[in-house]
């Protein structure tokens, strides 16, 4: 078999309040793609950040080429030939492609940076992998897919022995994914060891040789991809057999009234002519790749961004939603994919967060009735099963799942009838995920209606009564849950004009 180039053994890492990794092992071999799998929060990213010198481990050993090593910063790891392609692309938009690739190790000509040589080297690199990007282009002008390729080219240019890909395909089209896989195969042929983090089973099967699974910060095991089935891997990941069975049929009666109708919605080049409707008590799934325009559509409906054209009909009446205030007044609530940035005030307590969208109801004689705030908040802590020492706790001290429930509580208190969940379970662990799903089902049973944007196909198939698929700003199809399959959705999600 191929040679082991790097071994991580008994790695431990403690964050305040969380044991992120305990005694994790990992082995990377030359000319091999190792899949690193696990649910969100299993510790994959932390482990890779330790490997590439971004975090320091608390204990454990890393042996690289027969020597024990310790990287104090990313540069040290890079210099040793270990690089990571980050999930969130790290590009300097105001510099050119070549300048980005060689940032931190510019070619110099005396005091001067040799841009020409950098352009040439970048071109060579691109040619090698048949990437067609102009090295002199400004990074900010490239598509996400192209930026991803630049990031990979940058990783290769370090004369890397080990490359870590952290969910590299999240923003790529099918075509771009195949291009990426070709590059990965070539790198494998050149004897480079790779770690591939992804949630997508079909990719794991296509491109990886072995799979190492982590769960809740612990090492579960390593298996050979070819010899194992999808179910085995999933079982290792969740530790128990969960049947994430798709919903069989819609729970919405055929004659249910339409609560929301969106007609020919347009906004910039992110939302193009989108029309759909939402029925009372329905969970309408929005599927598509990253950048398909789903979040943008939601934001325009909610008034967070201004629409260019189109109409929104609420309960049979056309409404003008100029800003979120209008949307909230009309009974629409939006739960952002990025809770920490757009949903919560982390350094405020539970009740201040929960009452934010309906503070008027808590004001009597122009004084905020804090007693009432606490009471209502406590009620929701109980009914939503939020695990917290109390309602005066800062939200930043809660886990992702409980934070999400705080946002849900905010909209319930504000009496929203239509809830837009944008990636409702992102960053939430398996157990809490289940609770969020149950919560969403309870909500529609109570007569609320939900638009659910999700990039996880299993989530879409499990929760939705009907599915809208988008690609590059357009709605490319609509499927009833009875007819929907992963394949059909993927086909629509990559369908371009």
């Amino acid at each position, binding site marked *: 078999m191929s040679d082991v180039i790097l071994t991580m053994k008994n790695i431990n890492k403690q964050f305040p309040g969380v044991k992120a990794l305990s005694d994790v092992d990992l082995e990377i071999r030359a000319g091999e793609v190792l899949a690193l799998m696990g649910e969100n929060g299993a510790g994959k990213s932390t482990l890779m950040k330790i490997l590439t010198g971004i975090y320091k481990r608390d204990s454990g050993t890393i042996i690289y080429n027969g020597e024990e090593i310790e990287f104090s910063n990313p540069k040290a790891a890079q210099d040793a030939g270990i690089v990571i392609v980050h999930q969130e692309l790290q590009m300097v938009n105001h510099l050119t492609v070549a300048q980005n690739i060689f940032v931190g190790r510019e070619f110099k000509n005396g005091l001067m940076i040799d841009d020409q040589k950098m352009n040439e080297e970048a071109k060579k690199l691109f040619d090698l992998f048949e990437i067609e990007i102009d090295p002199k282009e400004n990074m900010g002008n490239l598509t996400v897919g192209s930026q991803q390729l630049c990031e990979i080219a940058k990783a290769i240019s370090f004369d890397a022995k080990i490359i870590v890909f952290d969910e590299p395909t999240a923003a790529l089209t099918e075509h771009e994914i195949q291009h990426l896989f070709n590059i990965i195969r070539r790198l494998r042929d050149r004897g480079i060891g790779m770690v591939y983090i992804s949630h997508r089973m079909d990719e794991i099967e296509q491109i990886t040789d072995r799979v190492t699974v982590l769960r809740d910060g612990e090492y579960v095991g390593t298996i050979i991809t070819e010899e194992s089935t999808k179910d085995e891997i999933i079982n290792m990941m969740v530790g128990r057999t969960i049947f994430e069975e798709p919903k069989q049929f819609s729970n919405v009666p055929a004659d249910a009234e339409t609560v929301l109708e969106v007609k020919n919605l347009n906004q910039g080049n992110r939302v193009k002519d989108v029309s759909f409707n939402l029925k009372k008590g329905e969970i309408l799934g929005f599927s598509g790749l990253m950048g398909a325009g789903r979040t943008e559509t939601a934001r325009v409906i909610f008034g967070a961004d201004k629409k260019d054209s189109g109409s929104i009909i609420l309960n049979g009446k056309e409404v003008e939603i100029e800003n979120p205030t209008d*949307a909230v007044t009309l009974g629409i609530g939006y739960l952002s994919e990025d809770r920490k940035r757009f949903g919560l*005030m982390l350094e*405020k307590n539970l009740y*201040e967060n929960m009452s934010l969208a309906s503070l008027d109801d808590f004001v009597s004689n122009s004084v905020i009735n804090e007693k009432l705030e606490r009471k209502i908040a406590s009620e929701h802590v109980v009914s939503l099963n939020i695990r917290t020492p109390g309602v005066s706790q800062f939200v930043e001290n809660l886990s992702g799942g409980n934070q999400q429930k705080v946002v849900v509580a905010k909209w319930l208190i504000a009496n929203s009838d239509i809830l837009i969940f944008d990636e409702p379970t992102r960053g939430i662990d398996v157990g809490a995920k289940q609770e969020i799903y149950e919560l969403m089902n309870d909500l529609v049973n109570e007569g609320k209606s939900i638009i659910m944007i999700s990039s996880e196909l299993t989530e879409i198939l499990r929760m939705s009564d009907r599915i809208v698929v988008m690609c590059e700003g357009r709605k490319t199809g609509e499927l009833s849950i009875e007819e929907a399959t992963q394949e059909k959705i993927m086909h629509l999600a990559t369908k371009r004009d």
Partner: protein
Amino acid sequence: MKNKLKQKSVVDFNKFGLLIVLVVIYLLFGILTPIFKPGSNFFQFSRILSALNYAYFIGFLALGVTFVISTGGIDFSIGPVMFASALIAGQCLVYYKLPLWLCLIIACVVGLLFGILNGYMVAYRFLPSFVTSMASMQIAKGLGSVFTRTQSVTWPPRGEPNSWFRNLIKFGSVPTGLILLMVTALICGFFLFRTKPGRYILCLGSNKEAVRLSGVSTKKWEMLAFVICGLLAGVASIFYVGAYATVQPGLGDAFNNEAIAACVMGGTSMAGGKASIFGTFIGALIIALLQEGILALGFSISYQYVLTGLIVLIAVIIDSKKNIKSV
């Protein structure tokens, strides 16, 4: 309700600690003064009164800027705006012979207008607050100069007609200024911590976008913080002239820093979202005490500048350390 406010401040050890700092500084100057200037005594009631004179206008400025800092913004124009108010209103009183009550209103209105300008530019036109307020600082300085033709203005001294405004500082032997400042602080505390606009202002500093996406008209409330700040700068000008009478054009920016220092010392976070009115109040007293003490030791005002600069730096470093730890 008042009990509640008090409770909060006493329970909080940080704020209690600030009181100790105030006392320690007072004692320190008391000990040092006879050493630096043999024969002079810091423990005189007149020293306290003189320090209080300084504390009033700094206090009003600091209370106002606490609102802006709570939103995560900053206002560098308060000192010059205070001077512009004092100059314009003073000119109206002395030169144009307008009635005193009207001039006091004019002083407040000038401050208010600058607050509206800053607030509009920051909240509705999305300018960074520090540039906006630096620009309006220039405008305020220029306006004050132009209005008085670069002359200084002296408000009537005690005993002359039109001098009853001095009773706002001291009425007989009653330090009315202190009472008014404390009442204003209580109102500010009530407003910031107990009412809807106050809550929104604090929330803005925590996460503006989350507040907007909760259906709150953030622009309105952000602007309000600047308007309050401007208004209080106008009010501060009355207390400035009540204590010092003469105002020169083209100055006032040193007071920005002292007011901001009072805030950050008092526990208001430059990152926004966290404020303490009680802390600001004590912070203003400390600043005033420092300036009185430095003069008592025989040092020039330049030392006050250096000291204030250092205080702001240290207070902000401590605060940002706290923030980093909690992340």
